[in-house]
């Protein structure tokens, strides 16, 4: 069953001569447990797609459903609650709060949602342990490596009962080993039932996804077919 559904979504910025069609008639659905990658050049509309899916921005037309709720029918407060409870964001530059330790950063969305501090910290600690970061819990962001910071931001995105994970170039500044570690964590979240979208221009990251959607000039122009069995790579190529 799809957790996120974008139906005929368009986004236009500006008016008249300065009008920019950032997204045009996007149809995209992501099932619970599925990992979808969105690839495209700079300016193709990838980030706009993510901010609309995450209810940070409203589409000019079309509808967006998250967990069955149509976003345009929710009040501002209801959308904020949905973001705190159900949606996790991962950004290229981590966006961790410098004055908070790793565990406090991870606990933050739960505390903002009214979960008592002790319970929130305990849930945050459990998530950090699952991500192999228990020994870094008390460290502040500037005491962590880039890879560790991104893993903490993934912990923050999946802590509690999140169902949708939205990642914008999650390995932007990381080397390939750390990029792979990040994708393994996102994939593990999907295996637990989280629906995820990773927006990237990096094919190595995108290749971890079940489905890769290609954007060009704000339109979905193509997508991959479901991957065939890996064994097929080890067989001789069929004659053309």
């Amino acid at each position, binding site marked *: 069953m799809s957790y996120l559904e974008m139906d005929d979504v368009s986004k236009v910025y500006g008016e008249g001569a300065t009008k920019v069609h950032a997204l045009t008639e996007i149809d995209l659905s992501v099932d619970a447990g599925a990992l979808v990658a969105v*690839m495209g*050049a700079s300016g193709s509309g990838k980030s706009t797609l993510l901010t609309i899916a995450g209810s940070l921005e409203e589409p000019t037309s079309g509808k967006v459903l998250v967990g069955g709720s149509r976003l345009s029918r929710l009040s501002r407060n209801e959308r904020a609650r949905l973001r705190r409870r159900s949606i996790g964001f991962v950004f290229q530059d981590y966006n961790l709060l410098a004055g908070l330790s790793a565990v406090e950063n991870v606990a933050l969305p739960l505390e903002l949602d009214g979960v008592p501090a002790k319970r929130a910290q305990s849930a945050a600690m459990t998530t950090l342990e699952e991500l192999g970061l228990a020994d870094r819990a008390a460290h502040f962001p500037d005491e962590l490596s880039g890879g560790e910071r991104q893993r903490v931001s993934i912990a923050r995105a999946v802590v509690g009962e999140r169902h949708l994970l939205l990642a914008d170039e999650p390995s932007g500044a990381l080397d390939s080993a750390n990029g792979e570690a990040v994708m393994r964590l996102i994939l593990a979240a999907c295996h637990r039932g989280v629906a995820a979208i990773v927006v990237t221009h990096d*094919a*190595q990251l995108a290749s971890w996804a079940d489905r890769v959607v290609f954007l060009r000039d704000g339109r979905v*122009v193509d997508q991959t077919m479901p991957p065939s069995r*890996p064994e*097929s790579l080890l067989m001789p190529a069929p004659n053309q």
Partner: protein
Amino acid sequence: MSVRHALLALLSEGPKYGLQLREEFEGRTGEVWPLNVGQVYTTLQRLERDGLVESDESNDDGPQKGFRITAEGEEELIKILVALHLPGVDVHEVVQVHRRYMVELMQQWTRLKEDEGHLDLGFALVVDAELFRLDSVIRWLDAADGRIKRATVEPLRPVAPTRPMPSVKRRSGVRR
């Protein structure tokens, strides 16, 4: 363009041996479509049967057997080239089909290393090598796509005189 058409195009430059045709095909497609020798010879036999190429008189079916294009073959090739330049052929779409195919191959290779616990080191290195190779092809496609897009806005000026291409030896990479 099929293998059949590509071989015809290569033969339009002059007579060639089967093995030479395979190497030139792979070299000019950036090794994106590896061809096996069997594919080359089967295609050449069909082209010969259809009267589009002819081979040496010798009975030698090995790598030293030469092939040349016939007048009918040249006519066929011209028809194809005309079709390729018809308005309505979207270059970005051609690039995208190629890009999608590469990403699908990368997805399959990535599946192989998903289960980290059971990943043999040697095999992991082979998988990485293939992923980086495919990734470089996609980067090249992205760059080409961008260059074509810019060229349609600002057409490239013709470069004169034509310089010979630098000769680059084919590397021996990891083959599927």
